[in-house]
């Protein structure tokens, strides 16, 4: 009986001990020794902090319909910290016609059925269809870049490159040329959309947003290679067609070219760049 009582008392006390320990462990871990207060990484190469970057860039459109889109541009960026920078990306756009455009140009009949939609000369003679499709002329985009990930890349275990992954987002102004309005009184391309003059391109400014992500490979303290994906979504009338504006739900042609004929396109592009870093590179403690 004594033994049982003693055992019960001991177990009771140990239980209390365990309970007390749980309470006591619920405090912050106090790191002592040589690691106390130390940063997670020492002598980290700070490629961006306090530095300015000039990066000539070339962008290539993806899933382009009537024109292959190219943008020769430049990214300017100042980095407040190693992970946060503001900058400006912009460029001049040029393009070439796609196979679809060439086929339409060759095969589309020029007659009354296509007179509103396909470029033609007097008397429904053939005219260049490529001249009526929209093209991006320039882009300017102030943007914020956040670089949360830093690391290195091993290639065949022989070449090691400091690498960073970043995301960016900003506001973009897109200068483009698309078929001008026609069909209404006062429209820039006239009141009839079946005349050759109605296919002329007009300039327009399209405000939109832009965002994307990319990788930077630092070849040296002052130079890097970049690859990035960028989305530049907005609505535009890429083919120069009368495809909307009529019917109860505006989904049918109305023999006019207006803003109703613009359709949303999630414009996408890949960019390659060579970045030059200005200013001395710092090193973390």
């Amino acid at each position: 009986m004594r033994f049982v009582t003693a055992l019960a008392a001991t177990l009771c006390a140990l239980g209390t001990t365990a309970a007390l320990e749980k309470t006591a462990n619920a405090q912050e871990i106090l790191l002592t020794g040589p690691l106390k207060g130390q940063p997670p990484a020492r002598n980290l190469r700070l490629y961006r902090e306090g530095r300015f970057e000039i990066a000539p860039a070339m962008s290539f459109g993806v899933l382009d319909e009537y024109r292959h889109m190219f943008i020769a541009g430049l990214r300017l960026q100042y980095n407040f910290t190693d992970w946060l920078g503001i900058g400006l990306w912009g460029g001049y756009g040029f393009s070439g016609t796609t196979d679809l455009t060439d086929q339409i140009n060759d095969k589309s009949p020029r007659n009354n059925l296509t007179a509103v939609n396909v470029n033609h000369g007097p008397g429904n003679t053939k005219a260049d269809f490529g001249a009526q499709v929209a093209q991006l002329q320039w882009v300017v985009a102030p943007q914020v870049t956040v670089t949360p990930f830093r690391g290195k890349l091993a290639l065949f275990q022989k070449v090691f490159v400091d690498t960073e992954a970043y995301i960016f987002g900003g506001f973009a102004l897109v200068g483009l040329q698309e078929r001008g309005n026609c069909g209404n009184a006062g429209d820039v391309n006239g009141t009839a959309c079946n005349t050759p003059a109605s296919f002329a391109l007009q300039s327009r400014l399209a405000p939109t947003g832009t965002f994307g992500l990319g990788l930077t490979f630092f070849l040296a303290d002052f130079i890097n290679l970049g690859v990035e994906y960028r989305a530049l979504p907005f609505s535009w009338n890429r083919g120069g067609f009368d495809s909307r504006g009529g019917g109860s739900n505006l989904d049918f042609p109305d023999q006019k070219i207006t803003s109703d004929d613009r359709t949303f396109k999630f414009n996408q592009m890949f960019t390659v760049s060579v970045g030059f870093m200005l200013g001395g590179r710092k090193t973390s403690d």
Partner: protein
Amino acid sequence: MKQAGRWLLFAAALSVLPSTALAQKPGGKPSKPPAGAAGGATGGAAAAGGGEAVDLDSDQPPKDQPKTDTPPADTGGGGGICEIDPSACPKTADLKTEAKKEVKAEVYAVQQNPVLKYHRFEVRPFWGVTMNDQFVSHPGPGLDMNFYITNVLAIGINGNFYSGLNVDSDFNFQNRRATRVAVPLTEYSWAAALNFTYVPIYGKFAGFGSFIFSYDIYATGGVGAISTRPIAVIDPDNRTFDFKPKVAFNLGLGLRIFLTKWLAANIEVRDYIYPEKLEQLTIASGPLGKPNDPTSPSNPNTWYADSVTITNNIQMNVGLSIFIPFSFDYRLVK
């Protein structure tokens, strides 16, 4: 009952001791331990010696260390070897020379591959989207299964399922209506391939300076089949196409970001290259309803284009990689 009271007192003492040792203020500067009551690592030494606490981090020897008049065995740092064999005792000058020698310590940029794939299976379910077909998109689920023969080389099979998921885009219809030009379209049913995968690049990233994850980049390629058929847009009243498998080659590049040692997020771009028989753009001029008449629009032989078109179906596949077995052992210690 008295015995029980003693046990209770003993147990109470047990319960008080550890809780007192941990009861320091979070973030506060630890106070200097009093003699004989030091906590943590020094506590045991103090208790055992019954005297002042020993600071293990200190460069100074304990105060009560017995002094001796005996000098060290030698000043050359040889220790006991100098007493046993003076000829083997290194000279001070030798040590200085040795210290000046350049040491070429081999330090790998990525010290230890955090995820070994050797002799592991990778099961990778994914969702694919079309990247290069603005007319018909071919989204659909897929599955990759690879066995890693070495840490960087794998052999495996890959399958895609598209049936019923092909999307004939609105753009396509509007283009046809506006220009009176029909673009031949194709839809897919399934694809399967035998592949080899090579992992030439791997590395690690620090996220926000607070956590580290590893990744690798792989190249893959193989051969298999893809089952496709034209979508009848030129003469939909008379033409009904069946799915037919074609030989398809594929090449791809992918990125895996390891979330654990057995789970990774995965994104890859893969190009399926195959010969396609598109829909014939003209309609046969013969009589209807005579499928055996070589000039009839009802004859299936008049439905296909005369030539074969090499088609690229570029897909972006996003999925998860699951490595089996879930764990592995390193051959060498870290």
